[in-house]
């Protein structure tokens, strides 16, 4: 029988030590984690820090374009990035289900290590627990992150003024559709691929125009529709979005047609939404286009005076309201 996680791996005894010595330290032991202290001692050059946390419960654990490991790094790194910070340190908490194949855990940890390295973040502290079979779906991960604020940014939706432009850094809905297609048991070939990737370089690249950048967000759960609505809800301004300008990957779009989903409601994990003064939109786009993660960047609309409303100019020249998504994304036949 192939090796798998046992309850004893979380018991604090010999098996726990073995798991940490064999799987965690070789991957993450070259920083503060080396001596396994109870708390990491960190030094930051700035006292303007950003601090964020996120839990990852994705099913399936592995999906086209990534797995829960790189997702757990990118998710927290991106939360820091859109707050205008350079990510520096991560905590890593693993909750493993008894019976999880060790090979799966290794693939996840490998991806996590690679992603952390690419993002220039160090896993500074961690924890591992094992729960009984049936108490979690294979594994859950929580990561918290500390980043140093980039000078110049003063982000907030209260700064939005009519005429400001809305930019996105790439195609929308790829992650959500990749996960959903893997889950629906359709055995899709050549289907959507997750866009799980870090966004901090896109943020660092536009620091020059920081004073003209009003707000940034990554459209994860709830998709672009949720992010846009949160920005203007209860405010004096609204948003106008052009459907014909929205970038979609062909496989993602095709799968959304099959399952009857509105891609505005579907999560991305490697897309940045940025609102800025009209005058710098072109410059930011040109700058992003030079980076691999920003090649598909586009201007998709602007800020209006229609209070709290997100309006979509449809592909045929009609208009409709973009509403908050209802919650659980379900395939439709109707």
């Amino acid at each position: 029988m192939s090796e798998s996680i046992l309850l004893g791996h979380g018991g604090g005894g010999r098996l726990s030590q073995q798991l940490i010595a064999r799987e965690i330290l070789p991957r993450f032991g070259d920083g503060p984690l080396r001596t396994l202290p109870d708390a990491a001692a960190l030094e930051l050059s700035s006292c303007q820090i950003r601090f964020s946390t996120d839990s990852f419960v994705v099913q399936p654990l592995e999906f086209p374009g990534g797995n829960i490991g790189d997702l757990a790094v990118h998710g927290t790194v991106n939360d820091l990035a859109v707050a205008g910070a350079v990510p520096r340190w991560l905590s890593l908490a693993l909750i493993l289900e008894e019976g999880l194949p060790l090979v799966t855990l290794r693939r996840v940890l490998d991806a996590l290590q690679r992603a952390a390295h690419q993002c220039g973040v160090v896993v500074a502290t961690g924890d591992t627990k094992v729960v009984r079979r049936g108490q979690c779906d294979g594994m859950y991960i929580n990561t918290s992150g500390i980043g140093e604020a980039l000078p110049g940014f003063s982000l907030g939706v209260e700064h939005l003024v009519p005429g400001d432009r809305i930019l996105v850094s790439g195609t929308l809905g790829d992650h959500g559709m990749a996960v959903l297609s893997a889950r629906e048991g359709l055995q899709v070939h050549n289907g959507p691929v997750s866009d799980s990737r870090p966004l901090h370089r896109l943020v660092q690249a536009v620091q020059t125009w920081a004073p003209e950048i009003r707000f940034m967000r990554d459209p994860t759960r709830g998709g672009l529709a949720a992010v846009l609505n949160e920005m203007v809800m209860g405010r004096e301004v609204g948003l106008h979005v052009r459907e014909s300008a929205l970038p979609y990957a062909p496989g993602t779009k095709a799968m959304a047609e099959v399952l009857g989903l509105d891609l505005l409601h579907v999560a991305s994990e490697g897309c940045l939404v940025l609102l800025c003064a009209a005058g710098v939109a072109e410059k930011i786009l040109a700058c992003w286009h030079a980076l691999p993660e920003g090649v598909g960047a586009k201007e998709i609309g602007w800020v209006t005076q229609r209070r709290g409303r997100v309006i979509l100019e449809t592909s045929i020249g009609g208009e409709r309201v973009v509403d908050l998504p209802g919650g659980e994304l379900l395939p439709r036949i109707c």
Partner: protein
Amino acid sequence: MCLAIPMKIIAIAEDGQTGTVDLDGVRYAVGLMLLDKPAVGDYVIVHAGYAIEKLDTAEADARLALFVSLAEVYERELGQEVVWVAPSPPRGHGA
């Protein structure tokens, strides 16, 4: 009530009951038993994992061509050119 989309048959299983369909490169298997003599290369309308009817591509192409020619007919009817004036953003502030 009946979300269904056109996809192209690219393979048919030996028993003829299922086949692989394609939309813009995305592929999966659907039931074909509601069709009369499906063939590879046919476009079909897929609903809930089954092809429910064939799509007549000649009719579809003719309809697309009709839409183009209708535009001219309507302009003649109205005696003027119909142009789309897209909404544009208000003048921005800042840099």
